[in-house]
């Protein structure tokens, strides 16, 4: 067992340990045991940092991969299949290493931040326990080497997000939100599960590498439509977790959870898991599936951006921007800009976490005021927050010199290239939507910055009626008990909440990733993460049977090139890697190669357009909110329908509520009525008829059959009663009878005698 594997397993299990300790003993530990959580996460981060160092920095090899697995369930000698085992395992490659480090880092920072933010909450200890189990399941997703365990951790992530969203479960809104989130995820999960089933029913294995090997060997006997279907179904899992278009509704509501949780789960890690998963299964996605993914991503990015413009809740704005950014990533994957998408995943994780933690600081300082309309002028009061928040905002908007700029424009370049390769037409919609939402992003982020930090404080403008409706719930009281009641001033947050902001802000500057602020492709990241060869290239679309023959030579030469290209040669990995990616910019799949080439061509165009868009957006924000040339309210009035449309989030909630939720509730009522009245009624009806017949039968028995018996008894009885009268008990009566009898006999005798 490779040492890295052991380390990674330790990393995986540490947060679970923290969960177990805290869930059982948090009340017995001092400070409710928050130091346990922070400490354990610190250790975990240290180890994962070591892994990162070894994998990324020391063995600077794109094809690096070590794997280990064990038999989890042994089904014995299954008829029709032969010996069959279900394996569980761990795989470490570059992507895993990076994700490990990222997840642990953000989780650690959030733990640290929470010690300040959640201080004094009555379930303080349990909160850290939940953070622990979330981190555990997230790491599980990152590390697992097969679909089954990914599905397991996938659902566990759903569980922990359920627990954390509903942390303030006494608020009905929170309870609803957690239920909504879990169910939406479940819908995605069953799609993903069906996708897994399609693959399993073919290969009787869950492991990635086995599946890819079988696929490359053309063992997939169903029609190719099934393969596309499996791809899209698996993507549904991502749609659920990463809040893509049909199932995006849960993410904004999830903001009911504590703000650090929003930062950790609903900005940085969990929602990114979907993208990570699609990246893992990228190689078995057929071009059709990729097209679907690309369009879904583009649409989501655009829609979320339009909604984000008009939201007033600071966290909701960020939530929708998250959805939109995730749309970017999915779009990137769809167009085959694999590494760009993952790059954006990482960068976005950092700056969006920074933004959320910053907003958390603001909310904390504003005594749980979340509505931007009543903020403003915080620039002076909270300089640290202001600085970090602005930096992160620039990164999100995608201004040059920030990490966001590099990743986003890589994706857009990929989109352009994709469009050109696919031959224009409808496919140009994708880059167009991308650029447009880039502009919108710049606009609403500018709006947010202005509303929050500049201008004068508008706290007093807040109408008193809904003052602290439920924001001022128990936690605010508990959290900052009395010191707020004496001095109500806004103040900078304490160090343990400031430090994470600073760290995250630094991580959203370009030089962390690439020496060239304009081209992320020159950086280490894009080098380490490279687009894998898909085992179902366009060549294999027509006749999957020929896929094996079509694929083998390509793979072979790819392997050669990869081996030649790689700085450090890791034979085991090169051998283990069939369908997985190869070193260098060589692609086993001609289509990918084409797209990559076109992307290179489109690189600078993308930069220009996107920069223009961003500048456009920001200047619009300035025009509207700084120079007041256009009055936002008047504009809103002017385009009221559009404004409402955006403000009400395109009415998705209403639509779903009217169709699915109401529908299923009504259906359930109907069915249970059917059950009690029709099915059960039928049963009872049978029972009743049987009883009726039985009663009739019983009547016959009682009055006729039994009647005869009783009549006999009765007659005997009466005769007895009559005859009893003769038994007077007087001797003389008997004598009389005797004599009468004798005389009777005599008469008889005489008559006999005479005649």
């Amino acid at each position, binding site marked *: 067992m490779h040492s890295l594997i052991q380390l990674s397993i330790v990393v995986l299990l540490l947060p679970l340990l923290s969960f177990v300790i805290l869930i059982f003993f948090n009340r017995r530990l001092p400070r409710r045991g928050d130091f346990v959580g922070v400490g354990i996460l610190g250790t975990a981060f240290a180890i994962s940092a070591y892994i990162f160092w070894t994998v990324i920095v020391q063995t600077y090899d794109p094809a690096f991969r070590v794997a280990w697995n064990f038999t*989890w*369930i*042994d*089904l*014995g*000698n*299954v*008829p*029709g*299949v032969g010996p*069959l085992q279900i394996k569980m395992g761990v795989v470490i490659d570059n992507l895993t290493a990076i994700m490990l480090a990222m997840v642990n880092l953000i989780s650690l920072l959030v733990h640290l931040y929470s010690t300040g933010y959640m201080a004094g909450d009555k379930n303080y200890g349990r909160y850290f326990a939940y953070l622990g189990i979330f981190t555990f399941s997230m790491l599980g997703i990152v590390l697992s080497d097969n679909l*089954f365990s990914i*599905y*397991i*951790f*996938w*659902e*566990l992530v759903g*569980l922990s997000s359920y627990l954390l969203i*509903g942390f303030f*479960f*006494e*608020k*009905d809104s*929170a*309870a*609803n939100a957690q*239920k909504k989130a*879990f*169910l939406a995820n*479940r*819908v995605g*999960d*069953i799609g993903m*599960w*069906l996708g897994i*089933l*399609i693959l*399993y*029913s*073919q290969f*009787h294995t869950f492991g990635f590498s086995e599946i890819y090997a079988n696929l490359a060997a053309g063992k997939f*006997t169903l029609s190719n439509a099934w393969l596309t279907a499996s791809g899209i179904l698996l993507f549904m899992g991502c749609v659920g977790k990463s809040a893509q278009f049909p199932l995006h509704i849960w993410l904004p509501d999830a903001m009911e959870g504590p703000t650090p949780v929003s930062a950790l789960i609903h900005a940085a890690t969990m929602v990114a898991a979907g993208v990570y998963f699609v990246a893992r299964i990228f190689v078995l996605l057929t071009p059709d599936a990729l097209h679907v993914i690309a369009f879904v991503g583009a649409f989501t990015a655009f829609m979320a951006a339009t909604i984000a413009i008009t939201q007033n809740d600071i966290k909701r704005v960020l939530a929708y921007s998250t959805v939109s950014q995730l749309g970017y990533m999915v779009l990137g994957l769809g167009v085959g800009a694999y590494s760009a998408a993952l790059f954006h995943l990482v960068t976005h994780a950092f700056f969006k976490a920074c933004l959320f933690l910053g907003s958390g600081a603001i909310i904390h300082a504003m005594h749980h005021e979340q509505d931007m309309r009543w903020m403003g002028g915080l620039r002076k009061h909270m300089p640290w927050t202001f600085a970090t928040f602005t930096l992160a905002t620039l990164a999100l908007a995608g201004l040059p010199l920030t990490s966001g700029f590099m990743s986003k424009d890589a994706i857009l370049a990929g989109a352009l290239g994709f469009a050109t390769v696919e031959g224009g037409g409808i496919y140009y919609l994708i880059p167009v939507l991308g650029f447009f939402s880039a502009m919108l992003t710049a606009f609403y982020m500018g709006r947010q910055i202005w509303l929050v930090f500049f201008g004068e404080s508008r706290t007093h403008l807040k109408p008193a009626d809904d003052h602290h409706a439920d924001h001022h719930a128990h936690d605010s009281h508990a959290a900052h008990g009395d010191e707020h009641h004496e001095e109500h001033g806004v103040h900078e947050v304490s160090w343990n909440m400031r430090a994470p902001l600073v760290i995250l802000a630094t991580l959203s500057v370009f030089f962390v990733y690439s020496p060239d602020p304009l081209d992320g492709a020159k950086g280490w990241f894009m080098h380490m993460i490279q687009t894998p060869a898909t085992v179902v290239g366009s060549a294999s679309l027509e006749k999957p049977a020929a896929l094996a023959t079509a694929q083998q030579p390509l793979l072979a030469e790819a392997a050669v090139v990869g081996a030649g290209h790689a700085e450090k040669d890791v034979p085991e990995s090169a051998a283990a890697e069939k369908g997985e990616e190869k070193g260098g910019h060589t692609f086993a799949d001609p289509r990918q190669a084409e797209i990559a080439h076109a992307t290179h061509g489109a690189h600078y165009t993308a930069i220009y357009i996107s920069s223009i868009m961003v500048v456009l957006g920001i200047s619009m924000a300035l025009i509207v909110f700084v120079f007041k040339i256009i009055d936002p309210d008047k504009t809103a009035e002017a385009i009221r329908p559009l404004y409402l449309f955006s403000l009400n989030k395109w009415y998705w909630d209403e639509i779903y509520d009217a169709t699915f939720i109401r529908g*299923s*509730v009504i*259906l*359930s*009522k109907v*069915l*249970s009525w059917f*059950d009690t009245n029709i*099915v*059960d009624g039928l*049963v009872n009806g049978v*029972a009743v008829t049987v009883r009726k017949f039985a009663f009739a039968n019983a009547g016959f028995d009682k009055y006729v059959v039994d009647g005869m018996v009783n009549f006999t008894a009765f007659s005997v009885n009466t005769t007895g009663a009559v005859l009893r009268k003769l038994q007077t008990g007087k001797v003389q009566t008997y004598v009389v009878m005797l004599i009468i009898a004798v005389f009777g006999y005599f008469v008889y005798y005489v008559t006999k005698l005479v005649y």
Partner: protein
Amino acid sequence: MLSLIVFLPIIAGLIILAVPSSQKQIIRIVSLLAAIAQGVLAVLLWRTYDPSMAGITAAAGGNPVGSFQFVEKLPWISLNLGGLGLFNIEYFLGVDGISITMVILTALISAIGVLSSWTIQKQVKGYFILYNLLATAMMGCFVALDFFLFYVFWELMLLPMYFLIGIWGGPNREYAAIKFFLYTLFGSVFMLLVMIGLYFSVLDPMTGNHTFSLVAMADQHNFIKDAILGPNNVMWRYIAFSVLFVGFAIKVPMFPFHTWLPDAHVEAPTPISVILAGVLLKLGTYGMLRINFPLFPEVFHAGMFVIGVFGAINIIYGAFCALAQQDLKKMVAYSSISHMGYVLLGLAAGNSEGMLGALYQMFNHGTITAMLFLLVGVIYDRAHTRQIDKFGGLSSYMPRYAAVVTIAWFASLGLPGLSGFISEAFVFVGAFSSVTTRYIAMVSVLGIVFGAAYLLWSLQRMFLGKRKADAAYDLEVGADGHEHIHFHDWKGKLDLDSRELVMLVPLAVITIFLGIYPMPIMGMLTTSINKLVQVLTPVVLTSMN
């Protein structure tokens, strides 16, 4: 050994018979000891069981006891019918992979049931005597390998169940008890007919006369070609299969025959609900596996699709009905209908994954549903109502209870890491892998979502949010300044007391452990199941890919 494990409760019942009925505590303790002893024996059985032996049918060489283990085989009833030959019924016990797990489950659930019967105050003596009788009958059903013996135990089960529901039940208990009794009797009558028919169409390869031995029956070679249920008599075989299937489906319960279940559950006292859902429902599917399918494999093969459809109906229909319930116990009852649907679906798949999932689901459903009913009982003891809307915000006031409920609820909705998930997953894997039931599986996956829906909804309405205006409990501010919950006439501990923890924690631990590492149970199943699948498929499965 098996006889001991079967008849231990009866012995306890006899002892109780001697105890004066005023000595309630002694009575309880005696039956508890018996249950514990039974559990110990079951564990012993489990440890000494050899998972490499398949069972199911007679081994090669016509060994009459097959590769069963712990076999006990004595002539029981043997009378000479002259023309009809020798009529011999054997006392034939034995276990294989399919039954050993059920034996363990039964022992476990009976012990839990005794514990939860502690609160029964009415006619304790009679209650425990009937209870022990029931325990014996259930255990007997799972280990009997002679069809006649099986039938005897099967019928023996009805009587105590009827009285336990009919005397110790809720307000509408007579109706429910009668309904349960008639329904099951209806099924078993047909079973009797088929049993006789089988007897006259099967020959024991050893002795050459007719036999009731299921081991002999499970081997198609032992059938007389032209007998009433012989291979040549196709129509009658189909009819026999159908009526037998209906008989077992009533116990499961399968869709059109399920309506006795909610009534019985709602009316029955908590321990009886636990037994009913934990063990009795399994007898239906166990009977299918042990009797219905192996004896008529070709009919089963033809009927897979139909069974699968009914399974899917159970899953989704049950989930929807549960979604609409106001009574918590009724919701749980419908949820177990839905979960037994998974079992049917897995059986219908007819391949190892599906069967494995089905059997594992049988075990897990036993433990999980037992938990659910115990938890319902806990809240009912305190609040004297089960209306979901009468609660709310409980988790602030009863944290321990809320925690266990959360575990149980999530186990029931198939959360990974808890045992329910693995069984459902395997059911779907199997159902999807077989061409016959692929599309059914696709539809039934919806059951996962709706299962989550009704469970989470009830969880939210009862435990989250704040106290409802018309809640079944009051709030009062205690000495320490915190709010405390207060039930109107509940003297006992507010949160779970130690007895309830002793009942619930083992189940929870089992659920979690088997969710992480299922091999302890699955390991015993696999060999038998692979053998069973071979028996069930006359032709090699082409549906696998």
